[in-house]
């Protein structure tokens, strides 16, 4: 594994912004951290980038500790912050040259890398324009490019598509895939489920500083049931004992979870499971006041795990 995070904790006063986060990222993977604002994604990425020190726990990049060997880690990583961390009155090329020099590049190598990066983000023609005259999407692309100049082995991207138009977003996605194909390992945070589903090989879902689920997209969706979920609101709330076990025994049902007067029934084929499930409920004397069938998604998984919308 290129990156290993073990039981990371970061406290700000009495608040645990990150609370026992652990995960690992294999070389060449795109690893996604998905969660709502305030979930602890930026704090986690800040610890891995050496910007913040964890209150406790340990993280390594290529075997180097992010706390004790921060200098070694900084030579390996590239960091693209959520903010547009560029100098607005300098041109795109001047910005890239400055950051390139900070990573020890110079001379012809720096010139060539700046050109490569500007071509990669398709802004070579605008290299002499000041950043302040760029659109939001173009600024994001240069912001991304500034993190790529030294060909980092591990690239940390903190919400790199916030506030950009769909066209620029697509462009950023293409760039990220090209970077991955060139061998870089990527940590990608977002609160946009679609981006994580599209880009990431492995995903950790965060909420309130904790990782509440992790795995590949397929593994995560399986938690909901591959065929979807039947969500039932039943009355009275206290269903007879043994009801959950009887439902689980029905055809194609893979799991059940109770939350108040709601039942979430996972199934490998929810359409086929629905009639026997309804029959069990009727026999138990439970009345169904509402019913919903939906396909599995990270959004639904998040709701099921936390009881709230991802964008809340």
């Amino acid at each position, binding site marked *: 594994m290129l990156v290993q995070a073990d039981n990371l904790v970061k406290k700000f006063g009495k608040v645990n912004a990150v609370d026992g986060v652990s995960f690992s990222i294999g070389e060449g993977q795109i690893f996604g951290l998905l969660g709502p604002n305030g979930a602890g994604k930026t704090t986690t990425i800040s610890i891995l*980038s*050496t*910007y*913040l020190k964890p209150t406790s726990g340990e993280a390594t990049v290529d075997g180097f500790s992010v706390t004790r060997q921060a*200098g070694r880690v*900084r*030579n390996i*990583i590239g*960091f693209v*912050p*959520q*903010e*547009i*961390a*560029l*100098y607005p*009155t*300098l041109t795109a090329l*001047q910005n890239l040259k*400055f*950051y390139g*020099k*900070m*990573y*020890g590049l110079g001379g012809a190598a720096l010139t060539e890398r700046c050109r490569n990066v500007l071509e990669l983000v398709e802004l070579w023609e605008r290299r002499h324009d000041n950043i302040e005259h760029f659109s939001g999407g173009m600024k994001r692309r240069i912001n991304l490019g*500034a993190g790529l100049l030294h060909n980092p082995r591990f690239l940390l991207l903190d919400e790199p598509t916030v506030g950009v138009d769909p066209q620029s977003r697509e462009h950023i996605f293409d760039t990220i895939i090209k970077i991955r194909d060139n061998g870089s390992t990527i940590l990608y945070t977002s609160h946009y489920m679609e981006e994580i589903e599209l880009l990431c090989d492995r995903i950790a879902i965060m909420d309130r500083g904790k990782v509440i689920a992790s795995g590949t997209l397929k593994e995560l969706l399986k938690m909901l049931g591959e065929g979807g979920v039947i969500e039932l609101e039943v009355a009275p709330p206290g269903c007879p004992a043994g009801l959950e076990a009887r439902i689980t025994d029905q055809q194609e049902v893979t799991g059940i979870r109770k939350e108040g007067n709601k039942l979430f029934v996972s199934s490998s084929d929810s359409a086929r499971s629905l009639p026997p499930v309804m029959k069990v409920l009727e026999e138990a004397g439970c009345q169904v006041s509402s019913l919903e069938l939906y396909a599995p998604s990270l959004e639904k998984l998040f709701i099921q795990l936390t009881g709230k919308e991802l964008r809340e």
Partner: protein
Amino acid sequence: MLTSLRKTWYVTAKDLLIVAKDRGAWMTLLVTPLVVIVIVSFALSPVYKGGSLHATLLVSNHDAGGLGKQLTDSLAASPNITIQAAGDRESKTLKQGGSSYGLSLVIPPDFSARVQAGQSVQLQVYDDPNSTTAAPFLKGMIDGAASRFSAVEVAAKAAVSAAIRQNPHADAAAVASRASAAAGAQIANQPIQVKEEPAAGVKTLNTFDIETPGFAVMFLLFGVMIGAEGLLEERDKGTMGRLLVAPVSQASILGGKLLAQFAVSMVQITLLFAVGHFAFGMDTGNSLAGLALMLAATAFTATSFGLLLAALTKTRRQASSVGILAILLMSALGGSWWPLDIVPSFMRKLGHLSMNAWALDGIKGIIIQGQGFIDILPQAGVLLAYGSVCFLIGLKMFKFRAA
């Protein structure tokens, strides 16, 4: 080590490039101070400038005899005074005891009679209580002229008495009239003048000698305040964070930024002095090395003040509010707006809590008092110590990461 120095220089070069491209910054750093210095210097030139004083005197002469006119002629012959005869309306106003005409003289109807009789006579002089320049001199001239008239008349009267004693048949009135007329004519031929002459060894001041250093130091502080805001902005907008996770030390980041600020401050204060000297004749004294030392010490201390400001404040807005208050206080107390020679002793002592006072003591020592390199070393030393303390506190307290 070499790599660190190189990266420090890259940060400096980047900041200098940003300032060089920022027209707004140059307005604040150079154009605004120059405009203020020029306006203030020209506005205050009568206060400091050498040469003759001059004023217009409104005269309402009611004297029935001839001495009133002779007194007026005597005053008119002075190059310091332009006589303006009062019209009916002005005379009426003056007669009623009021005057809104500035410096005015009322000669009473019995002026000649009383002078010739050796009696006391009262000339009414109205002045402008708000005038601090010419009026006191001109009042003195009028008093002097009037007393000389009296003295001459007494002498003439004595001469007439002596003549009558020698020749009892002489026409006393005719002798007195001739003596008086001759004396008056003599006075009129010797107009009284007031002329300012510099004391020996003290140079005549150009207003720019006084105003340029004071306002240059004040605007230097405004320049570093903008630099402090830039430092906080770099922290808040993420560029500092990006540098902190790059293989570059905090010392290189901050060192590079402070070096750029020092360079900008040096360029700013040097250009302000250069314009003052070449365009407006500001003196640069006899020790260019001493002046360079004072300007460098001032730029260093100002830069350290900027770091301290950034360290003590959390946001750009806070830095701006606190900075403006601190700079205005230091400028007022430290002699940037008026010379500390004119303020009470305790204010002068209080003023030396500010860097402005020490900077201006050294700079004005060179350009006004003609001091040399050795003479200003104490002021330069205090200034450098002042800057070092600010620098160390700022360094200790500055937070690279936003809270």
